[in-house]
């Protein structure tokens, strides 16, 4: 399963986390690392190897929220595409998710499994050159930190 790639999934709601684990793991054949909080996800991120290919995080969680976590992930693993999912979608959050965490996708809950699978395949299929371009942008834009 590791050959298909690893996905780090972060959500404080056990039911949603389990649904995503089933969809990504059993249906799509990916190796899923599950985390219940931003802090726990940071620990997984620190240990994850090159096989980590995608990060999906909920926004509203106790402690470190999904935006903070994905912004930190953009710094430590800029080559890994990031997706924010939320039941509390607002314009400002979407803008910040792009400008601060450089998310590749922003999805409002409830999630459509068909659309989610399509997007995940697209993001995980990005070639090396595209990933390297994103790393360069993340690094360069990391020094410009305002949201407007």
């Amino acid at each position, binding site marked *: 399963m590791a050959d298909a790639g690893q996905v780090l999934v972060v959500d404080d709601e056990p039911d949603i986390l389990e649904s995503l684990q089933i969809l990504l793991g059993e249906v799509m054949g990916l190796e899923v690392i599950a985390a219940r909080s931003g802090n726990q996800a940071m620990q997984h991120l620190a240990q994850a190897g090159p096989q980590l290919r995608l990060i999906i995080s909920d926004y509203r969680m106790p402690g470190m929220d999904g935006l903070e976590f994905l912004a930190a992930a953009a710094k430590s693993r800029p080559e890994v595409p990031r997706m924010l999912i939320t039941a509390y*979608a607002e314009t400002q959050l979407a803008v910040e*998710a792009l*400008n601060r965490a450089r998310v590749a996708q922003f999805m409002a809950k409830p999630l459509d499994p068909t659309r989610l699978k399509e997007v995940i395949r697209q993001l995980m299929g990005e070639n090396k050159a595209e990933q390297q371009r994103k790393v360069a942008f993340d690094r360069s834009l990391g020094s410009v930190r305002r949201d407007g």
Partner: protein
Amino acid sequence: MDPQGRSVILVVDDEPDILTVLRGLLESDLKATVHTAPHGTAGLEILRSQPVDLILSDYKMPGMDGLQFLSRANELAPQAVRIMITAYADLDLAISAINEARILHFFTKPIEPDHLIDVLGAVLRAQQATRQRDEALQRSLEMMRRRRK
């Protein structure tokens, strides 16, 4: 990048005054070659005729809006970084701009010129670094091929 080695920026906005101001700012502060278009259709024509490094587009324009334009630009010239400017941000627009037009940054008006230059400058520097690395890699591969012959 143009033949003189300057980054090429395409600015699309239906307000002529804004095009003039942005052209002056980007040319002077970023030393970039700037093309302007008053609507999305003209913007696409420019993308078809020459390489562009970065596209800065307004959202609300008559005819093709900025979202439609940037989505088409993503298909036509995916290597060009896309940035949207709007005074009318709403949730659907922001989500579509991220998910469909795959923009890199979203500016809401009014924009501080210094911030605009900071962000665009960082993007262009990253593009140049990537391009230089790719060219160096290409040269190394070419040298290896020659040695093998």
